């Protein structure tokens, strides 16, 4: 085995450092004052509402996890499930939930402090909001990498010491044990044994991604439904019917609306990116394990490289966070520049590190090209998103102009812009896939090419610590603005929190590009990793393995390449079973979107009724002599979100299992491909249409086509309301749907291989 030097220790060390810095930033944020009593009171309402939501969410998710845990245990006992999966599934879900919880706790403590900081200077407000966002960023990457490191070293220890007889099982699988079947320490120096062990370990680790994906889907769907139900309640009754501005303490739904920003944009986004971050590293490591054997030598650098890059990314992110500095009299433009210095600086650092690793022989120079392709794709997708959704460009202004004709043309043009906008991300991701595949040598060796695709995703997400800080910074600044409005802080403070909010919106566009791009690349890598799982199960079921070897004519399962799987399972589009899966995967995206949208409608309906009830039964609300029942609105939204999130989320888990049982591996591959291709396009369309409608309305409000209160504005408000569940519920959830279906397929591959009808 080739030596890996002591560099891999950077993996757990970096994760601890990330968590240490998260704690440091949290403590530093907490030292700031929350401002006036009114500001504290508002922040407390939001905090209590957010925690009440999370408590209930984790209770429901806990029950689902408990049921799935029992199912996995039963399947493991039946021999069609990896025995580590139940625990791995739980840890993935636990750390993902913990990241969301800590990120949201920080955000809810930070909003009033940011508003108070903004009362001193724009820079002070930025520092509080950005460093609080960094808590989320470093908690996500810290726990993500720590979970990976713990599993990696624990499983290595278990296999190397033959705990549970696993080391011997590997030896037996390879035929090393002969008839005596006794454990020998000689095995752990045998390259074939190490290789097989690593394949087992990396594919086992891959399954903890399902826990993270499940948690992420619940967080995104639940958070998305919550935030839109509250938003629609606050807007439709508070603003339209009662004429009260959005962030007005007389509006009963205003606290729920602020809570919604946290549960949707902070906890939901944190869980989402935790899942993407871990998924990309784990999928690439699993693909690395498959290609780590060369000329009888095992090279574990292929497995460790994505983890090491992620670890270096943490250090680069920390340096990047400290690069974000401005003067006290900074303008909004200079603030944006300083944020860009931080994010671009850490990206340059990670590129230098990757070049250094290539120079040291950790991987070929082709991988550098793959990573550069991924980073370029992320930037281009971000810029494309900016072009189609910003009011500085033609598409969004065109929607605003169509608003002059009324709501119908606003909707038509918004849909058209959303659909048009798919071309940049799709062409970019196609180019990114081909380039990262090609640079890594995919045209001569498929497995290396797919490894390059996975690595491109790892490179994009390696600086997640700082990019997530800039993402989480947005909702914190938004909430700070709400706090400043409700506490009636002076004009200059509101102007500063508005400037911070706008800054957050700008940086979020690039963040979105990386999130979407990496999701597509990761899903692609996961699909190939799925076949690695299938290979393992074929090895575990002798008659199936023998049939595979017999029909493909290869010497052993370990030598099977992608083309052998394509032949054996007939993985081509002319196979009606694969085609059936394609259709089903495509349908899943639409049905899931429909379910989440209808869920928003129902949950919002309950909220609308509640706000109307309060205005009816508590007459002093509007005159300001009575306080609305904020907690009741928070509760209504929470209950609605929990009830409504369950069915679409469970569907995402059940469909891949059912398709696997009926149509087998070909059907599953079709399902995943259909889900990826349609889901990715649909997600881009929904996100961009929603964003464009939102900004078209804002463009009118800035004093175009009649401005506020004009007929065009009314049409713009209709477009924005339609677009809200597009961009905040259904669109963001689709990315996770794609990956969760893949993860479920990976975890349930044993059941598919053994019990499928076709």
């Amino acid at each position, binding site marked *: 085995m080739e030596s890996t030097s002591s560099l891999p220790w950077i993996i757990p060390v970096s994760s601890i450092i990330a968590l240490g810095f998260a704690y440091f930033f949290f403590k530093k944020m907490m030292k700031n004052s929350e401002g006036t009593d009114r500001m504290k009171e508002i922040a407390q309402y939001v905090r209590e509402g957010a925690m009440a939501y999370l408590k209930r969410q984790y209770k429901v998710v806990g029950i689902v996890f408990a049921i799935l845990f029992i199912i996995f245990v039963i399947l493991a006992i039946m021999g069609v499930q990896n025995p580590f999966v139940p625990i791995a599934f739980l840890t993935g879900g636990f750390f993902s939930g913990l990241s969301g919880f800590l990120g949201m706790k920080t955000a809810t403590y930070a909003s009033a402090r940011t508003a108070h900081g903004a009362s001193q200077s724009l820079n002070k407000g930025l520092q509080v909001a950005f460093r609080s966002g960094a808590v989320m960023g470093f908690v996500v990457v810290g726990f993500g990498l720590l979970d990976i490191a713990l599993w990696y070293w624990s499983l290595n220890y278990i296999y190397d010491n033959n705990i549970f007889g696993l080391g011997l099982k590997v030896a037996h699988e390879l035929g090393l044990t002969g008839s005596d079947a006794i454990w020998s320490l000689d095995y752990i120096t045998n390259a074939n044994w190490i290789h097989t062990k690593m394949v087992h370990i990396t594919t086992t680790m891959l399954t903890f991604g399902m826990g993270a994906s499940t948690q992420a889907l619940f967080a995104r769907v639940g958070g998305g439904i919550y935030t839109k139900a509250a938003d629609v309640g606050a807007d439709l009754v508070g603003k339209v019917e009662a004429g009260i*501005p959005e962030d007005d303490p007389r509006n009963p739904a205003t606290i729920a609306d602020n809570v919604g920003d946290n549960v949707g944009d902070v906890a939901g986004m944190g869980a989402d990116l935790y899942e993407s971050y871990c998924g990309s590293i784990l999928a690439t490591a699993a693909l690395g394990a498959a290609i780590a054997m060369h000329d009888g030598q095992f090279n574990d650098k292929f497995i460790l490289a994505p983890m090491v890059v992620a670890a270096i990314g943490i250090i680069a992110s920390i340096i990047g966070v400290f690069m974000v500095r401005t003067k006290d009299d900074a303008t909004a433009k200079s603030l944006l520049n300083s944020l860009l210095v931080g994010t671009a600086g850490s990206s340059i650092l990670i590129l230098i590190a990757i070049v250094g690793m290539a120079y040291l022989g950790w991987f070929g120079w082709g991988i550098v090209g793959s990573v550069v392709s991924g980073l370029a794709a992320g930037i281009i997708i971000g810029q494309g998103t900016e072009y189609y959704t910003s009011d500085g460009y033609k598409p969004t202004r065109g929607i605003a102009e169509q608003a002059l004709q009324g709501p119908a043309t606003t909707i038509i043009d918004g849909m058209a812009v959303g659909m048009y906008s798919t071309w940049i991300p799709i062409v970019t991701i196609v180019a990114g896939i081909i380039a990262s595949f090609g640079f890594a040598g995919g045209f001569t060796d498929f497995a290396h090419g797919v490894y390059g695709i996975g690595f491109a995703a790892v490179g994009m997400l390696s600086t997640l610590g700082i990019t997530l800080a800039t993402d989480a910074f947005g909702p914190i600044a938004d909430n700070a603005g709400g706090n400043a409005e409700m506490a009636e802080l002076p004009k200059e403070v509101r102007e500063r929190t508005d400037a911070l909010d706008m800054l957050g919106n700008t940086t979020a566009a690039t963040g979105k590009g990386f999130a979407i791009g990496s999701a597509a690349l990761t899903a692609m890598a996961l699909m190939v990793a799925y076949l690695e799982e299938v290979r393992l199960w074929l090895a575990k079921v002798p008659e199936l393995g023998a049939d595979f070897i017999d029909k493909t004519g290869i010497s052993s399962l370990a030598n099977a390449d992608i083309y052998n799987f394509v032949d054996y399972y007939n993985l081509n589009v002319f196979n009606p079973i694969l085609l059936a899966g394609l259709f089903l995967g495509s349908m899943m995206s639409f049905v899931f979107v429909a379910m989440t949208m209808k869920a928003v409608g129902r949950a919002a309906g309950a909220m609308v009724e509640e706000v109307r009830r309060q205005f009816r039964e508590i007459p002093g609300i509007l*005159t300001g002599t009575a306080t609305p029942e904020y907690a009741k609105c928070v509760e209504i939204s929470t209950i609605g979100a929990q009830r409504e999130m369950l069915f679409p989320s469970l569907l995402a888990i059940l469909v891949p299992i059912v398709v696997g049982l009926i149509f087998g591996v070909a059907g599953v591959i079709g399902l995943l491909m259909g889900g990826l291709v349609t889901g990715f396009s649909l997600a881009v369309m929904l996100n961009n249409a929603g964003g464009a409608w939102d900004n078209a309305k804002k463009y009118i409000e800035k004093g175009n086509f009649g401005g506020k209160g*004009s007929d065009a504005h009314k049409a713009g408000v209709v477009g924005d309301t339609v677009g809200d569940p597009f961009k905040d519920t259904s669109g963001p959830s689709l990315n996770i749907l794609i990956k969760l279906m893949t993860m479920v397929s990976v975890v349930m591959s044993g059941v598919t291989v053994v019990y499928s009808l076709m």
Partner: protein
Amino acid sequence: MKRYLYLSLLPEGLIASMLPPNEFGNYLSVGTKKRTRGQAMFLEVDMESVKDILPMDYIEEKCVMQEGNIPKNSVYLSIYRVLETIPLKALLKLYLVTDDGRVMELEKQEYKGNLNKELHLYQELCPITPRVASTLAPKEFSLLMTDGTEKVSVPRIVFTELQLGDLSKDPTAAKIDNLPYPNVQHLRDGLLILKENNDKNKKTIIRTFTKDLLYRTIKNGIFVGDKDDMIYYPFPSIEELESKYYAWWRSANIMGF
């Protein structure tokens, strides 16, 4: 407890109340089940100046503390031809109320506006509500509408001048930008007729304006005039609105949804 006298402009009415102006505005807009939400605009009237024409006994009998020591909200004294009855000198401050009950008070001042011939857009508020484009300055317009030379006139009028932006210079091609007016093409046509025809000094744009007045469209202020005099309530600048009257301005800005 002190009693107040208010002249409501939307709709026209003379009301005695025990509520001070801010609370009265709040009551008019959101504090009654009869009208749960709605824009209001009223003038405070100096009771001393008009006590000879008021049914003071009736006011003293009806406008009294209610059960539970609650002040009387409103005693309606008249709902017809009120504006023309109250002399201009009796009018005190003007109060503009948003449809969620925020109240802003305006002090009267002498109007020193430009008298050059240019295009104006007036929204009449009381007792009639057409929207009229005109080449006349506010003082001339007030006079024209009240001095009886026109076949259709009123004894006294409350109106405001609305923003026209670049439309006042180029009615045909200027962008409407921040002007939320319905049927903009008709407005352009009306302005063009006035611009090209020296014999015509006013053109009706909307016969009866039934929607809420969007406060943000007020150009300079609100005028109350008759054939003898005109009083003027200047509207604060955007800077003042954003700093001094922010809560009111924020509510005013979401009106019209």
